[in-house]
Each structure stands twice: as C-alpha cells, then as structure tokens.
C-alpha cells in the first residue's frame, strides 16, 4: 500500500459537570417526553472523560508529535478549567441557549481545541458515562454515538 503512515497521539482528560436537557423551543410535555429524567429542573451531573486526538509529523529530535506539556496546558485552559465543577446551562456561555447534550458538548470541545498551534486536531471523543460515548472529527464528519450497553443507569 502506497499511502503514507499516519501517527496520532491520544490523551484522556476528565472533568465533572452538571447539565439539564431542556429546550425553550419545546413545550413542557415535549421536553418531558424527549429528555425524560434528564429534564429534571435541578439538573444532574456526570464524570466526563474527554479523549483528544492530534496528528502531525513525529519530530526526529524529540520523537514527539507535540510536547505533552503543551497539549495538557492548552486542553486544561480551554476546556477543563472552563467546564470542571460547573453547570453547563448556567456557567458556560455557549450552553445558555443551546441544549448541553453530550453531542453539543463534544462539538464545542472540538471547536475550542481546533486552534491548538502545535499539532492538527483529528477528533474529540467524549464519554458521558462508561456506556455512552460521542465522537466528532470536525465539520465534514458526522457525530458518532457508541452505546455499549442497554443498561439505563444514567
């Protein structure tokens, strides 16, 4: 096969946050029907895991795509510090009007990390619980939801 070998670096981060799934565009009954217990007016929370994938040439002198310290600092500043121990609906401007589903959170994290200057952002994977995982690789791609069990435990 002639196409070149691509190397990606993946790094996992964690934050805890709360959200309430509720849309002003829907009636109370519709909100209740669509979002179920996630529509509870007081909200609820998750331990989120964010997997960040970056790619680029492996520097011959360092053996690295990017220095981890640079990636950690960027992700911590742009995402973790902004989301950890917050309420998405109340504390994150982007979600004051947009419903903070993990699909939307995943896209927002991708948007925030796209500007990482040291390597190309390939994809963002967000685990809302160990059973629900969302993946987004930019505008040209689809959001992928992987559900690993039918257990209704969230």
């Amino acid at each position, binding site marked *: 096969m002639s196409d070149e070998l691509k190397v*990606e670096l993946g790094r996992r*981060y964690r934050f805890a946050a709360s959200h309430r799934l509720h849309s002003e565009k829907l009636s109370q009954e519709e909100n209740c029907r669509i979002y179920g217990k996630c529509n509870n007016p007081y909200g609820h929370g998750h331990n989120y895991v964010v997997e960040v994938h970056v790619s680029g040439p492996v520097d011959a002198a360092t*053996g690295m795509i990017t220095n981890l*310290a640079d990636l950690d600092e960027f992700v911590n500043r742009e995402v973790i510090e902004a989301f950890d121990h917050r309420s998405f609906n109340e504390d994150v401007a982007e979600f004051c009007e947009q419903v903070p589903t993990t699909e939307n959170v995943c896209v927002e994290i991708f948007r925030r990390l796209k500007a990482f200057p040291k390597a190309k952002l390939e994809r963002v994977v967000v685990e809302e619980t160990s059973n629900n995982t969302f993946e987004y690789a930019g505008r040209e791609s689809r959001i992928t939801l992987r559900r690993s069990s039918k257990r209704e435990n969230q």
Partner: protein
Amino acid sequence: MVYLTRKIEFSASHLYHNPVLSAEENKRIFGKCNNPHGHGHNYALEVTVAGEPDPVTGMVLDLKELKEILEREVMRRMDHRFLNYEVEELKDQIPTCENIARLIWKLLEPKITQGRLFKVRLYESPDLFAECYRNGAAEE
C-alpha cells in the same frame, strides 16, 4: 469489511534523552522522562486487522497466528526490556509512544498476510496512547 482487534500487554523501561541537545534542553523538553536511570510502563497494544471473513473458516485471519506474530515481533523484542538499549530499531530514536507505535506498525505490516493491518494503538498509560494507520484508510 470486518475489523478484528487483539490486545496484548508488555512491561518495559525507557528514558528520553537526545545526545544532540544540551543537558538543559533535554531537561526542559523531556522533564522527568529524562531521568538517566529510566522508568517503566505497562504498555497495552491493540492491533486491528481489516478483512473479509473467509467463507470456509469464517475468519478474517487465524487469531492463533496473530497471537504468534505478536509474540515473536513484539513480546520477545520488548517485554521486560529497556527499550533504549535492548531494542535495536529504537537505538537511534527517542522511544516515545509515537516512535514505538510506528516501529510496531513496521514490524507487523509485512507479517500480516491474511487481511491487512488497519490500526495499531499503543497505550503507555490508560490516559496516553499513540495510534498508527495508513492515511486515507477509513473505517467503513
């Protein structure tokens, strides 16, 4: 297309040091990974092979054969070794997760003759990994 993934684990030590750089630069770039005595990890390797199941055996490739290839190419070379000093192919490279994953790809690709090597993912810790694949090879 069916994607089959096999996982193995090995333990090895390494250190990051580039003799071309000054001691200060090595310290700044590599931090505690620059400790001259090295340190170790439990690596987890996931190898994904893509192919169509054989109509007779129902297999993309014989898992037993893949196990033997991984034993020969990866385990014997890297398990319980000091990667900088004992893995010939890494002697002139910094044994980062990126470089080890790339080496594993190069070792495995020619050996996998049933199906084709689709992806190699090497975890250095549960929160850090490198992945290798052919550019343009997309999962269906």
